[in-house]
């Protein structure tokens, strides 16, 4: 079953800006789906329309078989939204925010209190339940929004840059949490600027550029399109002549640090064989950037958008 089906979705804002130019998008039930795009590409507009925060101009949105135009309440019951910006009442206590949200979904207070406790404990902010939300740290505010989105047990969780501005430790713990709830059956749609996040979490991916979907495929398929990988190598000693290695392009950053672009068909094994033959000893290696990032930039460049 499709968790989300978007057909010919268009959005033209009142100032004339066309944010979406008739996009089609399908997300299967149980998927972990990445929606990528540069700022202003149309990701948040798409999410806003699905979550009923933005009026669409035309097209259709169906969530778990419920049409947004015909049965908006059924659609809303299926969705939990974690927006990009903090959008809770800064003067309310953490616990009250989550309990009230459950109430808006028609969950009686007694049950709402139980669910709020479960969610706040899962997100590890139970200790902060009686504090005003404005006094939480950035990471805790993000976790509060996730707890709030989960309190009515949605089938589709939409995360709009959920880890923006949080430290690595919290980000990693959030990733583990998202994987856990996805494994338990919740379909997740994620937008993020951390492409490493999308690569490690998501199974399918769509890339939006200037209101159009320019790529919609599975993550493995997309990554398979990558023709090269870039590594940074630290070598023990400087060499007088930079070697020429088939399938590799070497750029010297400083005497003992090289950036090497390795063609997929050449392979990293051949590179090391050559270096060993030439007597060049490698003391360290790291990826210059992740594969998805390179592909993302390449796809946008093909569409005339350059980040350099």
């Amino acid at each position, binding site marked *: 079953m499709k968790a989300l089906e978007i057909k010919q979705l268009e959005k033209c804002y009142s100032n004339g800006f066309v944010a979406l130019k008739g996009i089609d998008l399908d997300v299967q039930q149980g998927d972990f789906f990445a929606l990528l795009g540069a700022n202003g590409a149309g990701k948040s507009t798409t999410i806003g329309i699905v979550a*009923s925060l933005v009026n669409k101009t035309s097209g259709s949105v169906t969530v778990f078989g419920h049409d947004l135009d015909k049965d908006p309440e059924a659609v*809303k019951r299926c969705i939990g939204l974690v927006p990009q910006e903090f959008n809770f009442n800064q003067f309310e206590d953490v616990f009250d925010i989550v309990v009230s949200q459950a109430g808006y979904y028609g969950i009686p207070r007694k049950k709402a209190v139980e669910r709020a406790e479960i969610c706040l404990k899962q997100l590890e902010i139970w200790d902060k339940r009686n504090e005003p939300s404005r006094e939480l740290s950035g990471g805790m505010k993000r976790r509060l929004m996730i707890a709030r989105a989960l309190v009515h047990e949605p089938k589709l969780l939409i995360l709009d840059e959920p880890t923006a501005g949080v430290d690595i430790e919290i980000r990693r713990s959030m990733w583990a949490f998202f994987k856990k709830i996805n494994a338990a059956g919740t379909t997740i749609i994620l937008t993020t600027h951390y492409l490493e996040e999308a690569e490690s979490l998501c199974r399918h991916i769509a890339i939006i550029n200037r209101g159009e979907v320019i790529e919609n495929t599975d993550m493995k398929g997309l990554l398979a399109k990558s023709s090269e990988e870039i590594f940074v190598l630290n070598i023990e000693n400087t060499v007088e002549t930079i070697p020429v290695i088939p399938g590799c392009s070497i750029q010297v950053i400083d005497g003992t640090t090289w950036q090497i672009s390795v063609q997929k068909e050449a392979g990293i094994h051949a590179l090391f064989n050559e270096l060993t033959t030439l007597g060049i000893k490698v003391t360290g290696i790291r990826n210059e950037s992740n594969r998805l990032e390179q592909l993302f930039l390449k796809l946008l460049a093909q569409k005339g958008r350059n980040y350099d």
Partner: protein
Amino acid sequence: MIRKEHLVALQTITYKETRRFLRIWVQTLLPSIITTTLYFLIFGTLIGSRIGQMKGYDYMDFIVPGLILMAVISNAYSNVVSSFYGSKFQHNIEEMIVAPMPGWVILTGYISGGVLRGLIVGVLVTVVSLFFTDLKIAHPVMMIVVFLLTGILFSCAGFINAVYAKSFDDISIVPTFVLTPLIYLGGVFYSIDMLPVFWQNVSLLNPVLYMIDVFRYSILGESDIPLRYGFLVIGLFILSLLVISLRLLNKGVGIRD
């Protein structure tokens, strides 16, 4: 169709709104009591004793109903306008927009908050008035009905103001330049019989006049305007503002692009 979930959601909004104004009671409940006490003291006791009688009543007794209703009007209005605009400003209105509840639930929730605050302030001010005058309420049930109707009407007005407001200035402009003149020219301090015929007719366009008149009847047992006209005008205003508010909310004006 009204579902059980809708009633739970309505209860949640009402509870939240009530908690909001009770938590900040120094800002929400106390000012009206102090202001009205000053009115009673200055206009009723000090100046009122020199004015003499108005329509056969002591001036103090004459102004008490208007002053009580003035407190109800301003509190119902300001509760909804500040709470709804505050939710827009902080974007936490989105918590309600994404939830599966129709517009009427959200609107009724905010109106309930405004009506409850108006009712509480109205009762408190009535109690305070007992220290200044020997108030005898002629029609207590009607008094409560007028409290509620006034609360609903001005909660709707506050809601519409909040929908269109784009800054905190916008939520103080209407109370200052529209609401206050309507209240003061609505017969709180005088009977419209005292006005020239032309201004009497102009006054009849003021909805607050009908409320104060009907409310005065519920306390003193006497009014300037026939009761049925008073209730008809109040009813029509409520109906119109409810329809406008609901349409604005359902269309997402000021909330959704």
